[in-house]
């Protein structure tokens, strides 16, 4: 399954991965090879087969609506790349 550079760029954008043009070309080649291999699944007939999203057949795992202690604010903000008081600071989000 051929994949274009444009598609790789689009996927990288979806994944918020900054790639150099060299990387884009490099990955494009490797991806084509991998996708060609993965395409062997297309030859299988999966009609009527249920998907397995969970390896264990369990259901209805719930927890009671009971409070547990929260993390102390400093424990988490201490390692924040940028903070302002009690907030995490990030580059301006444009709405």
């Amino acid at each position, binding site marked *: 399954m051929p994949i274009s550079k444009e598609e790789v760029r689009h996927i990288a954008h979806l*994944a918020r991965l*900054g790639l150099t043009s060299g990387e884009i070309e490099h990955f494009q080649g*490797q991806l084509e090879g991998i996708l060609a291999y993965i395409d062997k699944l297309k030859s299988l007939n999966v009609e009527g087969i249920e998907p397995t999203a969970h390896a264990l057949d369990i259901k209805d795992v719930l*927890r009671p609506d009971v409070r547990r202690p929260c993390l102390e604010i400093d424990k988490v903000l201490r390692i924040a790349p940028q903070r302002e008081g009690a907030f995490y600071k990030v580059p301006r989000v444009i709405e």
Partner: protein
Amino acid sequence: MSLNTLTASVLRERLHAKKATPEALRADLKKRFTAVEEKVRAFARPPDFKAPADRAEGPLRDIPVVIKDNICSLGEAVECCSKILQGFVAPYDATVVTKLKEAGAFVQGKANMDEFAFGSSCETSCLYPTRNPWDLQRVPGGSSGGSAACVAADEAVMALGSDTGGSIRQPASFCGVVGMKPTYGRVSRYGLIAFASSLDQIGPLTKDVRDNALFLSAIAGPDERDATSADRTVPDYAKILGRDVKGLRVGLPREYLIKGMDMEVRAALDEAIALLKGHGVTFFDVSLPHTEYAVATYYIVATAEASSNLARFDGVQYGLRRPDPSNKEDGALVAMYKKTRGEGFGAEAKRRIILGTYVLSSGYYEAYYGRALKVRTLIRRDFDKVFAGCDLIVTPTSPTPAFRLGEKMEDPLAMYLSDIYTISANLAGLPALSVPCGMTKSGLPVGMQILARPFDEEGIYRLAHFYEQKTPWHTLKPKL
């Protein structure tokens, strides 16, 4: 005899009988570390040889253990050997760490690994590659390469690794130690930095089967913090050890005995089979017809889940952050995301994120991910059919012994294909263990894999222990 060369079970006896002290054990481990770590490089960061604050009374009292650098230990750095997590300190203990502490053990240090567990050689670590103690020019396997190597090199008594497609078993086989991937849900994943949520399991890497059984009993069990953990009591796995194996029915899947398999690996396996036959085990030729689709299925499911699990690494709350004022197109926030993730992730991580994002993307879901989940059902059914007539399945753990450093780095697909024997157990959620079953002429370990029905780790331990005790492999040590 240096205490660090002993198994946990022997150490427990000696410590309990006061024939050895915890201090002496730590001293021996430190001595060994100083002597060989420069060559092996099994650790992600230099371990702590201090005594822990206090230890509980338990079956593993005073035993130091090494945990893979993707398992959270309160107050300790945990970075998955990735630049993007530099400086991240775990604010909580993984459930397995809580449990091992309850058993009296303590965390000695963090083992090196492939970045985010993406790899089969420990070469994608952002730090350095770990070396195979049996041949320093070769890889220890991956992604739990550091965990396997430190146990093989006697730098650790026992270690924990994680296994998503073979990452405990394959390095165990490359390094000549015992590695168990439990049934999916047997061990809590809370505190394991996720790679592929529906495939990951934490498991022990040890010098022998008894230690492995002891360690698994200590860390396994239901966890209210992990909705995918099984609500089943944990047996005392050591109890099954020493049982006879006469009458056990073992399947040999013909699809696993492929042409690409190394001759010496084949020979070692054949000898193991012969030995077991001699003790009353019956072997059957069985078929797992969808084996050829396993790697493709795995690389769709695992990378899809990984691409989502790794989205959180974005420089906002912790770890690396790289603003990028030169990116005018995207706006400051997105530019920051892209540069942070572009610099923070290694090539293999990026490759998997791209592949995973692709197979989930609009228009491709049904063709790839949707289809892969269905093939997964077919793979599981193959095993169900075989286990209707067999107690266990035996295969080689890896088609080859440890390969050279750098040998597979150019061709990612070749690297992926080396997982061929281990991957299906993760897709089907089955327990699987690797036990040493021979040495090549050049002195490289070979591993035999044993698989069982869900939650039949006991069956695996029974066969593995019996075989181990009839062979010398677990007594061999690398010359470092």
